[in-house]
């Protein structure tokens, strides 16, 4: 098999993992090749609009498991391949030198057993770091069920080490990934959490959940994310809209991945991590989001009693709860109003988009165009007619 054929098979089988980030590490170029960029760098964007930052490949797609949703499951009749460690190193180095990539994202299907699979990953990354003196970003997947010793070894070589939780509940996991044990997944995540340091996965850990392959609600998913952020100190939870590739009576029959839902979950995730929302607030008594608007607007429309907010007085925490006002805009506002009184015109001048915010704020005690818009139906219809609110832009 040629290198081209292997790369095709092993990139194709890795592409469903949503993780794309290359941030969080300060690794220096220690007289070899490469370094990490703390804020991450996107090198390209695929035809599906997703960022390409790392060479995302599997060591092998030969799998002994049979997860229902996965292309690589053993019951599928697909072309299989195994990279040698040298091959992975060669491609990484040569892509990196040409600035195609920011580093390597290496994962694997389960071949023989979890420990054996992990050893292959370790052997490869060890070679890359030591023989090839590669100091670029490496994200590796820890294989659940592998020994703590191996997890520690892998963690000491990479920038980010993560384990996929796959589905938000144990029951869903049992149903769709019968060979995976939720206990093993959580153990692996705990071991990683307990070892993170400047010498062990300095860019921390992330995980991913498949969205829409089971009946789990948005609430169940966000609750799970929230718990995981607290328990495992994750940097990110990725949401991967289920792509219908296999036929199985346990899988939903849909023709398109639920992209809008995925987008709303990402937005809600930001609200949890950076906007100081708690999960229950995001839903009140609902179990799913109103997909027509973003989750912050959704919340605001349920809580009009909280508005309008006066731009010149509201605290930082209040500002970031205004629909359409992001963290950067809130900081700009705080900095600007120290020296002058902000008007609607000023907001626009500062590059702050008030398409959504204008309904929820006053500037210098005046409503936008002097009209009080604070009415749920009015705002909703204005926002929804504006097709931009449903436009997808998923990746930071």
């Amino acid at each position: 098999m040629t290198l081209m054929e292997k790369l095709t098979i092993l990139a194709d089988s890795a592409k469903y993992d949503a993780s794309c980030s290359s941030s969080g590490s300060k690794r220096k170029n220690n007289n070899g090749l490469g370094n990490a960029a703390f804020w991450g760098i996107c090198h390209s964007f695929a035809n599906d609009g997703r960022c390409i930052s790392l060479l995302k490949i599997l060591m092998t797609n030969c799998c002994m498991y049979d997860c229902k949703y996965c292309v690589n499951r053993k019951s599928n009749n697909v072309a299989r391949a195994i990279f040698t460690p040298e091959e992975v190193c060669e491609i990484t180095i040569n892509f990196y030198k040409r600035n195609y990539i920011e580093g390597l994202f290496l994962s694997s299907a389960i071949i023989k057993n979890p420990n054996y699979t992990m050893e292959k990953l370790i052997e490869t990354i060890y070679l890359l770091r030591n023989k090839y003196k590669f100091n670029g970003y490496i994200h590796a997947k820890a294989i659940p069920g592998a020994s703590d010793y191996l997890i520690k070894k892998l963690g000491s070589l990479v920038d980010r080490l993560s384990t996929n939780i796959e589905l938000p509940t144990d029951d869903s996991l049992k149903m769709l990934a019968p060979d995976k044990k939720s206990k093993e997944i959580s153990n692996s995540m705990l071991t990683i959490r307990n070892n993170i340091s400047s010498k062990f996965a300095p860019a921390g850990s992330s995980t991913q959940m498949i969205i829409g392959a089971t009946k789990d609600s948005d609430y169940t998913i966000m609750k799970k994310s929230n718990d995981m952020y607290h328990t495992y100190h994750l940097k990110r939870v990725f949401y991967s809209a289920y792509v219908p590739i296999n036929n199985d009576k346990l899988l939903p029959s849909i023709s398109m991945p639920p992209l809008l839902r995925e987008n709303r979950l990402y937005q809600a995730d930001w609200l949890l991590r950076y906007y100081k929302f708690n999960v229950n607030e995001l839903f009140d008594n609902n179990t799913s989001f109103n997909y027509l608007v973003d989750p912050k607007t959704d919340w605001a429309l349920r809580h009009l009693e909280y508005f309008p907010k006066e731009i010149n007085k509201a605290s930082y925490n209040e500002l970031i709860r205004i629909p359409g006002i992001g963290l950067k805009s809130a900081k700009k506002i705080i900095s600007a109003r120290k020296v002058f009184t902000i008007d609607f015109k000023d907001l626009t001048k500062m590059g702050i988009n008030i398409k959504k915010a204008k309904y929820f704020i006053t500037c210098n005690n005046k409503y936008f165009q002097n009209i009080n818009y604070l009415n749920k139906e009015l705002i909703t219809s204005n926002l929804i007619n504006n097709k931009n609110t449903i436009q997808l832009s998923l990746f930071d």
Partner: protein
Amino acid sequence: MNYIILYDGSLDNLLSTIKYLFKEKIKPINIVNEIEYVPNLLDYSLKPDIKDDVLEINNKKAFKIIYYIYLSNYVKKELLIYYFLLNYFIYKNKIFNHRNLKCVNKALDVEHKVAREAHLLKGFIRFKLINNKFLYAKIKPDNNVLILLSNHFAKRLKNEYWVIEDEKNNLLSIYDKHNFYVIAKNNIKLDLNGDDVKWSSLWKTFFNTITIKERENRKCQRNFMPKKYWKNIIEMEDEL
């Protein structure tokens, strides 16, 4: 008197010139690089005779803003720097809050644009290996970000020989494993031909394979990776 002030194109000389203008209380209608200046009958142009008496700006953030504006393609960038500095000496550290002042707002925007372009190109620049000897890349940026990129790659590709060509400004940045040197392209003969097909075709294959067909979204792709850069992004060149 309406003065157009000339300077030699360097940042040092620009800052000395501005210091002189402050001292003499001259408000110019423009400040331009003498090479680009086309004399006409209406303007009164002046190149002050100044020593290397550079204006000191000890606020790091303010200096960065000025440096980035200097690298930008903003038409009246020198005048923008002049007005930004005029206000800087009034408001000191508080200057960054003053988005209500046109020149401050503009200065921050221009800085942001330059920083953004440099950041994007750190990802989008593509090298090819020429004759197994050195890496070579071509860029056509809006702003003069060659030095910012060179700083980045001097760390990242420390043990490689590389050359980055700025097609727009006709400059080359040449790195010899120790330092990089920026020179005019016409001053040097380099053989930049040679093919690098093995790895570029593997990369194109990877690029095409990684797309999830069911998620195709070319608009989103174009938003993140502006079309103006595609010419030098090897995996996109066939799209043009």
